[in-house]
């Protein structure tokens, strides 16, 4: 039993259970929320060091040997994702103290947030495809309740759409798992990889691959399965949008990368070319959707879709450097996107609205907020020296290496349109003079409760600082991503870590 693999799950889970018990004491729940997320972050860092030092870590739950028991396994990609999950959980938990109304806080917000973190981490760490389904459901049920918590009309409508599409995708996931089990007689992903190599049934294999592409495509919001995202992500309070925007679609991307590097690598010419085309379409459609929007959160939602295209692009190119660039991109994107939603929340507090035409003059009234917006926004567009520049540079280089110039062209054009969208928010909300002069300053803005401004500005400033430092000191993270990319391209190490040397 390897404790390092279970702690990122157990710590937030125990904190969630305790927070449930402390139902009446919101202050206790807050500390448990922050503590649980912090514990997950620390446990994730320990795990990352263990993987860095000792190679891929695997453990069998209940000591049933693989492939019979449920395996937890962490390679560098998984471990990095766990760390980033803990970091986002911590940022959002702190922000929630000042940024969420007490009514929602006292109706189980913190336990739900922690369970969401458990589900996300479980999906990153599991080495069993049915168990992946279970973790998806854990994550989903927490996200359903978080989305509907508060019960406003728009929230309920958004939740209906979100719940429906996710239940459909769960049913397809279950079907795909069933067919895979019928084909191979195993559910352990490492064992599946071995048996699928030996299996001589390319048509059924590709059918299952396409079924899983649809399933994870829905979760990741790739073209043409993204419509639920801009219809639901802007409805809940901004803290919930922020954690959703940061983490949930990326679990879909993670599952896609895992499945299409480990299991379905027999028909690369077909599957990965298709993924490249989908990546290009996702980028284009997402960014064009954003151009047409005039509500900050909806613009940001469409940009999630567009950015998913970049992450899938690395998978489609299917080289070690391309996958490394994807890993780097995911890390960069999670931080930046969460931060942008948190900033949007403060823009609402200061300017009174999410609508661009009702906002204005924020640069004059709250210059600090302007800086905090500008860093993640420019990073999203890929302006050097911020993290987005390095991430896009990596993808573009990987694309040129394998001579997919059309895809590189699309990526660069979409990047320019992203900049257009971000400058639109900047010009409308920050530079334009305030309509009716009703804007208040950051100092006068009153958060929904007494948590104080520090709990709002602290997480935003910290995330912005991380964005800048990833951009300026890209070397460590890029080396890590390269190693993760190498591991993904050579799944034998993963298989050996799970099944032992014998196979």
């Amino acid at each position, binding site marked *: 039993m390897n404790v390092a693999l279970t702690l990122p799950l157990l710590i937030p889970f125990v904190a969630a259970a305790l927070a449930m018990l402390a139902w009446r004491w919101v202050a206790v729940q807050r500390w448990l929320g922050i503590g649980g997320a912090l514990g997950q972050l620390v446990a994730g860092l320990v795990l990352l060091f263990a993987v860095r030092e000792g190679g891929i870590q695997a453990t069998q739950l209940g000591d049933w040997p693989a492939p019979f028991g449920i395996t937890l396994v962490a390679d560098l990609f998984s471990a990095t994702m766990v760390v980033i999950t803990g970091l986002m959980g911590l940022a959002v938990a702190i922000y929630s103290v000042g940024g969420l109304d007490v009514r929602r806080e006292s109706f189980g917000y913190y336990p739900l947030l922690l369970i969401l973190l458990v589900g996300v981490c479980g999906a990153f760490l599991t080495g069993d495809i049915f168990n992946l389904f279970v973790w998806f*459901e854990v994550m989903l049920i927490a996200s359903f309740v978080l989305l509907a918590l508060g019960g406003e009309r728009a929230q309920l*409508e958004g*939740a*209906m759409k979100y*719940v429906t599409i996710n*239940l459909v995708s769960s049913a397809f996931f279950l079907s795909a798992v*069933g*067919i895979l089990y019928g084909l191979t007689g195993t559910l352990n992903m490492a064992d599946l990889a071995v048996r699928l190599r030996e299996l001589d049934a390319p048509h059924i294999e590709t059918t299952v691959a396409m079924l899983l592409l649809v399933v994870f495509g829905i979760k990741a919001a790739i073209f043409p399965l993204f419509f639920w995202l801009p*219809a639901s992500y802007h409805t809940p309070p901004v803290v919930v949008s922020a954690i959703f925007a940061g983490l949930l679609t990326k679990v879909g991307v993670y599952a896609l990368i895992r499945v299409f590097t480990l299991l379905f690598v027999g028909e690369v010419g077909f599957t990965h070319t298709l993924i490249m085309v989908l990546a290009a379409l996702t980028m284009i459609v997402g960014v064009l959707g954003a151009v047409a929007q005039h509500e900050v959160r909806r613009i940001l939602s469409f940009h999630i879709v567009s950015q998913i295209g970049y992450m899938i692009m690395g998978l489609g190119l299917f080289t070690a450097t391309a996958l490394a660039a994807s890993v780097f991109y995911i890390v960069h994107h999670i931080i930046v996107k969460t931060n942008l939603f948190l900033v949007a929340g403060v823009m609402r507090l200061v300017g009174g609205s999410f609508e661009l035409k009702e906002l204005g003059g924020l640069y004059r009234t709250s210059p600090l907020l302007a800086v905090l917006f500008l860093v993640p926004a420019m990073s999203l567009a890929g302006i050097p020296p911020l993290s987005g520049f390095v991430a896009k540079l990596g993808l573009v280089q990987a694309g040129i290496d394998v001579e997919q110039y059309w895809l590189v062209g699309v990526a660069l054009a979409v990047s320019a349109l992203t900049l257009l969208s971000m400058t639109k928010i900047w010009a409308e909300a920050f530079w334009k003079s305030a309509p009716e002069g009703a804007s208040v300053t950051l100092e006068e803005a009153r958060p929904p409760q007494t948590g104080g401004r520090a709990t709002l500005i602290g997480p935003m400033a910290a995330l912005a600082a991380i964005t800048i430092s990833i951009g300026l000191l890209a070397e460590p993270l890029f080396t890590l991503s390269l190693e993760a990319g190498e591991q993904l391209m050579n799944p034998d190490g993963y298989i050996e870590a799970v099944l032992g040397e014998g196979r």
Partner: protein
Amino acid sequence: MELILSILVGALFAAALYTMLRRSIVRLAIGLTLLAHAANLLIFTVSGVGRSGPPIVPEGEQAPIGAFSDPVPQALILTAIVISFGVLAFLLVLVKRAYQAVGSDDIDEMVSTER
């Protein structure tokens, strides 16, 4: 037997999708229920249906002797049923709340998220 079950799975999927495409949110919920059943039955069918003994290892042996039925698909289905039960319970409450908030069970009326 497998053929009949396969046709039944197909019929369930078709019925589920048809019901979900109606505009009423109650029908949507029923469709999602059927969809979960279809997936469960699919797992059951794909993993083979037939007469065989219980998967019990006799004393002194390392593996069950003769044909035995695989318990794993049943465990999967049981887990999936429990999960879909919980999720559908939530869905029903959501349908009720959405109906109360919107004042109609027509999905076409739920357009306030568009703006």
